[in-house]
């Protein structure tokens, strides 16, 4: 139903940048929230027409069906390398990567670290839901100790499966990284903060400052075996292991614009 009489100012509505089709994501999946935030930020910064986005292998592989942008599909984990290739040959484009935690923190570890190390002018969105959603809920490098997954049926045990990997903390010490922050989609206030982080990370690229990444703690109700609201509440547990906030912000000091063929 729509408003009874002539509707007044719209406070919130579906962003234009989103396609009409309903997503294949499970009910309550954070990917949908994050897609919407991206759409809002790209609209507000008017970046969409310049944007070339890199889709991951993961549940978000279909992002190209939902966000009306030019997309290329990267092999699992290689989005930062793919983005490097794009950004280097198109200094005027805005390049965005969107990766899950399996994609970025496991198989793609080398690619993200070296793209960051080179200070590539890329904005990286890192969706940490602590699990491999698409393949059926196996452990990710970010999975919490004790967490049950289909590949840690008795809960993740450090002795067998290692410790959770603080990827963004590792990246933050690299000089090529000008902005690194961690947000969450647990509730409206956090979602608001996260959107601000995404905006900052996009600006960093626009200003030619360097590599920027926003890790977003998200949920996977199906993989976690919880209802959507339960999973959002559980994020407070996750935040204890992965503290929220801005880890580094050097984006104020812009680097000189890239030379042709330069970074």
């Amino acid at each position, binding site marked *: 139903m729509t408003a009874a009489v002539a509707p007044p100012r719209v406070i919130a509505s579906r962003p234009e940048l989103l396609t009409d089709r309903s997503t294949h994501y499970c009910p309550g999946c954070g990917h949908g929230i994050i897609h919407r935030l991206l759409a809002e930020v790209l609209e507000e910064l008017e970046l969409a027409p310049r944007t*070339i986005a890199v889709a991951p292998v993961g549940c978000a592989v279909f992002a190209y069906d939902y966000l009306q942008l*030019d*997309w290329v*599909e990267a092999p699992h984990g290689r989005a930062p390398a793919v983005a490097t*290739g794009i950004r280097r040959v198109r200094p005027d484009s805005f390049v965005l990567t969107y990766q899950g935690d399996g994609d970025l923190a496991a198989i793609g570890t*080398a690619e993200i670290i*070296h793209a960051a190390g080179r200070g590539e002018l890329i904005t990286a969105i890192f969706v940490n839901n602590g699990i491999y959603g698409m393949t059926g809920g196996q452990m990710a490098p970010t999975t919490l100790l004790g967490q049950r997954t289909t590949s840690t049926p008795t809960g993740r045990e450090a002795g067998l499966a290692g410790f959770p990997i603080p990827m963004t903390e590792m990246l933050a010490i690299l000089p090529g990284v000008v902005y690194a922050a961690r947000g969450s989609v647990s509730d409206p206030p956090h979602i608001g903060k996260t959107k601000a982080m995404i905006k900052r990370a996009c600006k960093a690229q626009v200003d030619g400052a360097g590599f920027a990444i926003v890790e977003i703690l998200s949920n996977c109700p199906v993989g976690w075996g919880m209802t959507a609201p339960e999973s959002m509440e559980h994020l407070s547990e996750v935040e204890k292991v992965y503290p929220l906030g801005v880890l580094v912000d050097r984006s104020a000091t812009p680097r000189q614009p890239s030379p042709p063929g*330069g970074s």
Partner: protein
Amino acid sequence: MTVTVEGTVTAKDASPSKRSRILMKGNEAIAEAAIQAGCDAYFGYPITPQAELLEWMARRMPELGRVFVQAESELGAINMGLGAAATGARVLVSSSSPGFSLMAEAMSYMAGSETPIVVVNVMRGGPGLGSIGPSQSDYFQAVKGHGHGDYKVPVLAPASIGEAVELVATAFELAERYRTPVILLADGILGQAMEPIEPQFRHPPRQVFDWALTGADGRPPRVLRSLHLQPERLEEHNNALQAKFREIAHTEVRWAGEQLDDADLAVVAYGTAARIAHSAVRKARHEGMRVGLFRPITLWPFPEAQLRELASRPTAMLVVELSAGQMVEDVRLAVEGRCPVAFHGRTGGMLPTPDEVLAELRRLAATVRAGGAG
């Protein structure tokens, strides 16, 4: 077009004056040829025996304001290539055997998403870390089963540095005309040797691509992908790809022949092996043997029809490779029993000598006379 005359694809014959030629190392000539062909970006990772190609690019590309990135690995290099190529840029990536193996997944992606790119493999001895000596033991990989899934990519095999220069331009043309990765398959000899070449390079004209990712500015968004989750859709896509492959197979076969008209023995060899065969054929002719050389230049599409026709004449064939026997399978497939097919190969970086090949020819001639099959 199909090149059927010996050497028309080697730079030399186009030479106005032999003196004007310059001495260049194979790896460097390939790199410079790519630059002259308008290569916008190069991505690579050091490995012997192709390191000089990367080093040449490291010096020249920045000079020209173009893109050079030494990637963190071959995986990084080929995926940077994928990204740059997705924007419609002319991209070169190079490596050698072990590094080429690491590019299988991305090659399959690019074949699937129809992304044009040129990849050079300067083959070395295998398997594994093997040796750094010249080899042709990645033929199967390049021509049959590098990545997963049903796909083929054009594979060009130069036999001289001059020809390599020419084929680099051809590779970019094929890549863009058919929206496909193209492999330039060389070996340690071609990479490391120096030969005189014409300082003349070809620059294929630029095309406008309706698929290239440039930002959805005033046009509908574009997506480059290989994922088609619905099998029905993926099958359609595969059928379209197969149709393209058939067209390439029909249109782009390249090969060269030497003294085949009166030959009752033919050596079939490509690349460096073909040069050795060339010398052996020369020696054999001096001995009065009627021997010719059939040299595939495109390994895929393979000059199947041409070989079959050759086989329909009273001939026997000797396949010579720097491998334990790989292209020989395609020769047998083409010939389908119409004539005896013998094989001589060396591996691990070893090269057969012309005398060795000559001896094999004598043996083959004998068996044929004795009516036995190769």
